[in-house]
C-alpha cells in the first residue's frame, strides 16, 4: 500500500462519519424531538471516548492492518470468523447506503427516472472508485473535504437568521433511560464506519508524528460539525416539521431565499451528500475486497498469483 497523508486520512474519517450521520443518526435523533440536542451532546461525548479507546488500542501495534491483526487472534478460527463477520457487515452497510443514496436521488433530484438506472449509475461509480486503492480515494476526499466545509459554512451563514432558540425547549421530555439508549446508539452508529479506516496501518500514515492525537482532534471537529447540523435542523425546522421529512437536512434550505432572489439552493448544497455516500460505500467495498484477497492469498496462493498477474497486465 502507498503511504497516505494524515490530512487525507482525517478527511476520509470526516466523510465516513457524515454518511453515518445522514443515513442512521438523523432518523434516530428526530424521534427524540427537542431532546435531540441532549442526545447529540451526550452521544458526542460517548463517541469521543469510545473512539479514543478504539484508536489507542488499535494503533498500539503500528505494522498490521485490521484484517491481519484480527487474523492473528488466538485461537485462529475466532479471528477468521470475526474477519468474515466484519466483511459481511460492511458489505451489508454498503448495500444499505446504496439503497439510501438511490432513494435520495430518486426522491429529491430525478423523480421521473427509473430507480434501476440510478442504481446502475451509483454501482458503476462505486465499482470504478473501489477498483482504485485507498490512496486514490484519500486524494479525492481531500479535495471534496474543502468543498464540503465551504458548503457547510455557506449553509450556516444563510440559516443563522432563521434560528429559533425556543425549539430547543423543553429538555428531558423523554425518559432518562431512553436518552441514554439514544446516546449509546449515536456512539455506535458514528463509530462503526470509522473501523474501515483501520485498513490503513499506522506505519502507512505520514508524517508519523502525533498521528493518534491529530486523528482525535479531527474526530472532535467532525463531532462538532455533526452536532451543529443537528442544532440547525432542530432550531430552523422545529421538532414537528423535521419529523415529517425523510431528509430534514435537505429541507433546511427549501424555504430560504438567499439575497432575496436565489431560491431552491438546497439541491446544490446537498450535492455533497453524493460524495459522502459514494466515498463511504467505496471504502466499504475496498474493505471487503482486501479481506477476500488476504484470505485468497493465504489459502490458495497459486490462484491468487494467477489473478494478480491478470490484474497486473490489465492495469498496464
Amino acid at each position, binding site marked *: 500500500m502507498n503511504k497516505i497523508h494524515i490530512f487525507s486520512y482525517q478527511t476520509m474519517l470526516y466523510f465516513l462519519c457524515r454518511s453515518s450521520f445522514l443515513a442512521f443518526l438523523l432518523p434516530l435523533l428526530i424521534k427524540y424531538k427537542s431532546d435531540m440536542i441532549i442526545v447529540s451532546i451526550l452521544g458526542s461525548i460517548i463517541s469521543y471516548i469510545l473512539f479514543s479507546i478504539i484508536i489507542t488500542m488499535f494503533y498500539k501495534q503500528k505494522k498490521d492492518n485490521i484484517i491481519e491483526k484480527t487474523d492473528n487472534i488466538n485461537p485462529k478460527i475466532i479471528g477468521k470468523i470475526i474477519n468474515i463477520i466484519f466483511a459481511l457487515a460492511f458489505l451489508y452497510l454498503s448495500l444499505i447506503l446504496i439503497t439510501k443514496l438511490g432513494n435520495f436521488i430518486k426522491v429529491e433530484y430525478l423523480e421521473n427516472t427509473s430507480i434501476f*438506472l440510478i442504481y446502475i449509475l451509483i454501482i*458503476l461509480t462505486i465499482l470504478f472508485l473501489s477498483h482504485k486503492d485507498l490512496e486514490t480515494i484519500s486524494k479525492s476526499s481531500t479535495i471534496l473535504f474543502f468543498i464540503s466545509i465551504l458548503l457547510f459554512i455557506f449553509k450556516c451563514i444563510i440559516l443563522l437568521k432563521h434560528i429559533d432558540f425556543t425549539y430547543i*425547549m*423543553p429538555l428531558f421530555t423523554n425518559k432518562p433511560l431512553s436518552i441514554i439508549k439514544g446516546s449509546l446508539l449515536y456512539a455506535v452508529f458514528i463509530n462503526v464506519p470509522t473501523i474501515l479506516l483501520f485498513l490503513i496501518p499506522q506505519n502507512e500514515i505520514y508524517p508519523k508524528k502525533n498521528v493518534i492525537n491529530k486523528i482525535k482532534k479531527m474526530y472532535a471537529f467532525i463531532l462538532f460539525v455533526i452536532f451543529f447540523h443537528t442544532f440547525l435542523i432542530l432550531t430552523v425546522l422545529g421538532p*414537528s*416539521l423535521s419529523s*415529517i421529512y425523510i431528509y430534514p437536512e435537505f429541507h433546511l434550505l427549501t424555504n430560504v431565499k438567499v439575497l432575496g432572489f436565489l431560491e431552491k439552493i438546497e439541491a446544490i448544497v446537498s450535492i455533497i451528500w453524493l460524495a459522502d455516500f459514494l466515498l463511504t460505500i467505496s471504502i466499504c467495498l475496498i474493505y471487503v475486497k482486501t479481506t477476500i484477497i488476504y484470505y485468497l492469498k493465504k489459502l490458495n496462493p497459486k490462484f491468487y498469483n494467477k489473478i494478480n498477474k491478470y490484474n497486473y497486465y490489465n492495469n498496464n
Partner: protein
Amino acid sequence: MKKILVLIILLFLFGCDYKEITDSSVATIIGIDKEKDEYVITALIPRKEENKTNLYKGKGFSLSSAFNDLNLNLEKNISFSHLQTMIISDVIAKEGTNEIIKYFIRDEEVQKNFYFFVSKDTTAENILKALLKTNNNDYNTLTNVFIKHNKIKFKNNSIAFHDFVNNVLTKGKDATLHSITLNNDKVIPSNIALFKNEKLVDFSNNIIGYSLLSKKAKEILLDLKYKDELITVLIYNINVKSYVKDRNIYYKINSKVRVKENPNDVKIENDLKNIIENNLINKMIDLNKECKKYNTDIFGFENVLEKHYIKKEFKDINLKINLNLEYEKDGKYE
C-alpha cells in the same frame, strides 16, 4: 476503455428529468374548493404567447384526480415550481386541511413558502375570477395583490404554507390563516381564520390584537374617538416581549405613539395615552377570550408553558398585559 465507459455513462445522464420551461404551464395562484364531495381546482396560468393570464379548472374526488383533470384542460403539463399563492375555501377549511397538507408536503416540486389564504363567504374560484377581472390580466399585479394585502391589512404578518403546517403539527399550538373575500367584485383582505388542529373554527376581525399578541406588529394605525371627535394615531417602534410568571403568560409591550390625523384640531391631553392603552389591551384580551371560546390556542400559550415544564390547559391560562406607550409630538406641527 475507461473513456468509452465514461462516455456511455454521460449518455445516460443527459435528459434525466429534463423539463423545458416552455413545455410547462406554470401555475402562480391556485384555488381549491369543494362541490358535492368533489375537489374543484382553479389555477391562474400566465400565457406568454398571448401576453395574458388564463383561468383553468379541474374536478376530481381526490386532489390528485382534480389536478389530473386540470392537466387535461391544458396543452402543457402544469407545474407548481413557482406557486406563489394558494387559496382554499372556508368550506374545505372547516372540513379539515389534512389532505391538502399531505398533498403539498409530499410534492417535491413545490416550494413550501407560498402564501396560504382562506376565502371567506365565497369560493376560491370566485376570488381568482375577480382577481383576473380587476387586474386586467397583468401577471405582476395579480401576484402583488396578496403581498400588498399582507403589508397593509395584516401588518406584514405573512403566513406561509410551511408556517401553517408547523403550527398544525406543533403540540400545544393551533394555526391561523389570513382570509380574503369579495366586496363588489373586488378582492379584499378580510379577517383572521382561527383553526383548531387542522380545522377552521371561526374568523376573527381583531387583527390589531392578533398582530400584537403574535409579536409581529411593527406599526399600527388606529382610528379612535377622542373628545367625541375622530382622530387617527400611529403606534410605532412596537416592542413585544412575553414571559412566564406564576404559571401564566405575561406580555410586556413598549411602544411610541403620535397623532397622525386630527382633522378637527382637538386639544390632545395626557389622558389620550391611557385611552389608547386601554383600547389596545382590550383588543388583545377580547381576542384571547374569542380563542378560549373555541379552545384554539393560536399563540401557543400551552406550548410556551410546556417549555417551562408547566402543564396547564389553554382555558386555564391567564393572560396579563403590561403596555407602556410613550407619547411623542409630531415634531412638524403643534
